[in-house]
């Protein structure tokens, strides 16, 4: 615990603005009957982009709020990351929400509130703060996943997600209590200094605490064997929320894991490194193999995202500043790619109401631009050269191999090849199969624009990664200082 508390509330301005934006969205929906509900997504996205710009004001500054929250480059990186993701999801929901869901105000408000939780998960440097932020994100997501009130599938997905989420939070909390007892503090810095001299004898409390924390966070990021909720929640949730789950909820889990394990538990590296390595290997293999036999596009992307989590866990197992910055780069590339894929899938679902892989046949004739964007995104997920996925995977696998985990990198490369098969099966439907009915579909210009912008992002990361990579390096530099 720091001696002098720095209670400088101005450090938290972006999150105050986000809370204000959420309140504004709630209030407009509730008290302004004349306000056109179709404008809510654009208002939310505009607000998020404005606050995103504001948060650049804290770039290259290093400070903390009462020792609880860091405001440094790592936080700034994830502020920009999460707000950009939420803005893209809000825009992608613009047609979906009025057609399928009720109460748009709460939908966009919860989206903004969950962003605050995600940002504080990255910023937290104390266990209670980390836990509360985690629950802020999770609670918002429980509601959003079961948002389609009258759709039994959404209810079911929400219930499974919520029950397993509550169970995993309880595991996480019990682990935290053991670590508090063992280290005598909940501040990351104090935990690190408590273990700095190494533990003399076998510390059961610490080991049990680490196992439970890992299990709890493993549920949140959907690592095998804690992944059972993922396909159900992904399939049940409204489509834009599936996109949001695969992007923000995963990235936030990794943001928390990375700061926690690099600044609190680095001295006891030997105790947890093997756990992460084993989880990473299991997650990669199982996620990619089960994805092979999926026939629903949401479940396919759920299992493919589990496979991606395996690659990312590898970076935590081989923790060093090189793998940490490679992880941030891979996360960014993955999220841009996944949002591009989901934008196309949401648009197709809006126009045809279908989500089985077989229903995508002939998309190239009926909506050529969307089909091309979806193809680019899937190639990037598979890791084809020129696309973001190739470069970020290459840097990640290389960094992991250099830390002495060559066997993990080998599994990862083999599994990437396997993943190409199921992505190609989707692309085959898009381009080779004949469409059910002929004729172009009227895709709104905004959706086309969003898809093209995200695909440009995919190529940008894949061909000119320098800027993003430098930002990732700046962000992770302080973690290992």
């Amino acid at each position, binding site marked *: *615990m720091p001696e002098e508390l720095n209670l400088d509330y101005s450090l938290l301005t972006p999150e105050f603005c986000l809370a204000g934006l959420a309140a504004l969205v709630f209030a407009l929906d509730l008290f302004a009957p004349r306000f056109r509900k179709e404008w809510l997504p654009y208002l939310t996205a505009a607000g998020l982009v404005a606050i995103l710009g504001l948060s650049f004001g804290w770039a290259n500054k290093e400070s903390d709020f009462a020792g609880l929250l860091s405001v440094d480059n790592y936080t700034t990186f994830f502020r920009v990351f999460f707000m950009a993701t939420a803005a893209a999801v809000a825009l992608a929901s613009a047609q979906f929400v009025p057609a399928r869901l009720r109460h748009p105000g709460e939908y966009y408000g919860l989206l903004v509130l969950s962003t605050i939780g995600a940002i504080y998960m990255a910023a937290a440097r104390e*266990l*209670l703060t980390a*836990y*509360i932020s985690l*629950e802020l994100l999770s*609670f918002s997501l*429980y*509601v959003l996943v*079961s948002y389609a*009130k*009258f759709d*039994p*599938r959404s*209810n*079911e*997905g*929400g*219930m*499974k997600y*919520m*029950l397993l989420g*509550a*169970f995993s*939070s*309880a*595991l996480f*909390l*019990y682990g*935290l*209590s*053991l670590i*508090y*007892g063992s280290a*005598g*503090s*909940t501040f990351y810095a*104090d935990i690190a200094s408590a273990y700095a001299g190494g533990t003399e004898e076998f510390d059961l409390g610490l080991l049990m605490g680490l196992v439970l924390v890992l299990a709890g966070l493993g549920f949140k990021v959907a690592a095998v064997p804690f992944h059972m909720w993922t*396909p*159900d929640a992904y*399939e*049940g949730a409204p489509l834009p929320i599936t996109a949001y789950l695969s992007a923000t909820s995963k990235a936030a889990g990794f943001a928390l894991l990375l700061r926690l394990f690099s600044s609190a538990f680095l001295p006891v590296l030997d105790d947890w490194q093997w756990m992460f390595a084993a989880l990473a290997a299991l997650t990669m293999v199982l996620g990619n193999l089960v994805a092979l*036999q*999926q026939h629903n596009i949401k*479940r396919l992307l759920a299992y493919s995202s589990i496979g991606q989590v395996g690659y990312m866990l590898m970076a935590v197992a081989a923790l060093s500043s090189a793998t940490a910055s490679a992880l941030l780069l891979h996360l960014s590339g993955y999220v841009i790619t996944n949002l591009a894929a989901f934008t196309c899938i949401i648009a197709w679902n809006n126009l045809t109401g279908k989500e089985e892989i077989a229903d995508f046949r002939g998309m190239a004739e009926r909506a050529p631009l969307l089909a091309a964007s979806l193809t680019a995104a899937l190639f990037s997920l598979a890791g084809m050269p020129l696309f973001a996925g190739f470069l970020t995977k290459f840097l990640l696998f290389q960094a992991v191999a250099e830390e002495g985990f060559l066997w993990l990198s080998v599994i990862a490369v083999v599994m990437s090849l396997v993943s190409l098969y199921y992505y190609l099966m989707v692309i085959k439907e898009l381009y080779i199969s004949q469409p059910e009915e002929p004729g172009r579909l009227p895709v709104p210009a905004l959706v086309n624009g969003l898809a093209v912008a995200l695909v440009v992002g995919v190529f940008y990361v894949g061909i000119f990664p320098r800027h993003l990579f430098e930002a990732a390096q700046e962000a992770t530099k302080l973690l290992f200082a």
Partner: protein
Amino acid sequence: MEAVAQQIPLEHFLVLSAILFSLGVYGVLTRRNAVLILMSVELMLNAASINMVAFAAYAAPERAVVIGIVFAVFIITVAAAEVGLALAIILRVFRNRGTANVDEVDQLKW
């Protein structure tokens, strides 16, 4: 606090919380009804609270005592919010499906 510490050692609290936690895990894994699963999760949360307060009273250094107690208060608050949210979702499932048993709610699989 000193007087209590002389009579009851820390281990008693830890064993109590470990038993509660295990009962909770057992309940989550064996119960079919979603509401009972939720109750089992509450047991696990209470086990964590007991641990926090016991460690604060016995093991923590002077300046970290308050953390454990504040943590326990937050756990209680969050647990209350969690129950509210969870019951709302279970109620929706019950309205739409006529059951709250997790093994009968099985539209989504593989």
